[in-house]
């Protein structure tokens, strides 16, 4: 069923939400709105993406009407980065837990996991001074293509019941707004502390990371002052993880 925008509008009166039946990618639509000067927190969503964007040209599997695919234009200022990327993960985690009651872990910097499988992903593009945050949440998928089955899950699979995309959208926008305000008012250190509490990946986790053409293996050792992940490699070397691609070591 198409998303019932009236319900969202009645809960969030005045919020700039642009909803589409089908777009190539909500990131492209949001980029155009950002270039035209749309306000902070403008949200673009679609029931279906024909070319959902993942990291490094990967596609985001965007089954029609099963997921929540949105992009939000954030005008939070340069000083907020890169803690903003961690804040986005916190907002998604809060929104999912609040809406359907399943426990969500965060994999640095901002993948949301249910029982070790990815249920939501965040990707952001910088356009001048605006950050466009793309959020994809697997909501009511009953199954995934074989190549994603090991890695992905949905809120319906995890919670055992269908989840309202409208209530989830409302929660995501409210939590985003709240966490961006917290970042502005309390500063990045507070966001980093919250993230460290909310994620099992920040310290003491054995992981494998691809970086700089190498496969790095080791144990996570906290965040640096900016929010980058420290890795204590098995060789004893300490390396800062800059981008992403952190995976637990060995079989699940």
């Amino acid at each position, binding site marked *: 069923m198409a998303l019932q925008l009236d319900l969202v509008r009645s809960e969030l009166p005045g919020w700039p939400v642009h909803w589409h039946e089908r777009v190539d990618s909500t990131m492209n639509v949001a980029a155009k709105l950002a270039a035209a000067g749309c306000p902070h927190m403008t949200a673009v969503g679609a029931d279906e993406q024909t070319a959902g964007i993942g990291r490094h040209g990967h596609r985001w599997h965007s089954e029609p009407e099963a997921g929540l695919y949105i992009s939000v234009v954030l005008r939070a200022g340069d000083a907020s980065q890169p803690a903003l990327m961690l804040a986005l993960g916190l907002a998604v985690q809060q929104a999912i837990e609040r809406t359907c009651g399943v426990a969500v872990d965060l994999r640095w910097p901002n993948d949301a996991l249910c029982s070790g499988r990815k249920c939501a992903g965040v990707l952001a593009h910088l356009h001048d001074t605006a*950050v466009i945050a793309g959020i994809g949440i697997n909501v009511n998928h009953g199954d995934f293509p074989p190549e994603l089955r090991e890695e992905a899950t949905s809120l319906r699979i995890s919670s055992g019941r269908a989840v309202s995309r409208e209530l989830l959208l409302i929660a995501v926008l409210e939590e985003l707004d709240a966490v961006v305000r917290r970042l502005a008012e309390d500063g990045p250190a507070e966001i980093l502390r919250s993230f460290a509490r909310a994620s099992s990946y920040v310290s003491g986790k054995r992981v494998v990371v691809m970086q700089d053409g190498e496969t790095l293996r080791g144990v996570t050792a906290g965040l640096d002052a900016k929010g980058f992940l420290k890795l204590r490699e098995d060789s004893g070397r300490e390396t800062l993880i800059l981008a992403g691609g952190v995976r637990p070591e060995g079989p699940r």
Partner: protein
Amino acid sequence: MTIEEIKELLRVFNESGVAELEVTRGDKSLRVRRSPAAQDILAPAGPAPVMTLPQMMMPVPAAPAPPPPAEAPVRSAPAPAADDKTLLVKSPIVGTFYEAPSPGSPPFVKAGDPVEPGQVLCIIESMKLMNEIEAEVAGTLVARLVENGRPVEYGEALFSIRPR
């Protein structure tokens, strides 16, 4: 700087036609210069002559083994592009350098390409925030100074461009 990186630099340098290039990474720097003779050979059109390394390469130890006296000139800011007419494009953030929109696809730009203001040159990724770096001037891309997939520091030189 590894030998692989130096080889890659030399390859880019060879393709670029630039006369002199200096790259600083941490406390190490490397300056590569074509000898006048080599430039003379390069001038005529036709198959590119192969140059031998000793002609072109002149490593510059940034931190000589005996510590320099206090009054020695400080090599602080990265040296400007050796060719006065080229501009350096620098990274605005700490992150990972990507030369292409996705693995396996062709790079946004390569040495010798014309570039226009606003044209995307590369992506720097920082915690899944993708920052497309654009050219600010019209010109010719002289060299890419960073290898694909490498971490870059704030302010690190990514490309040199000769404005037109």
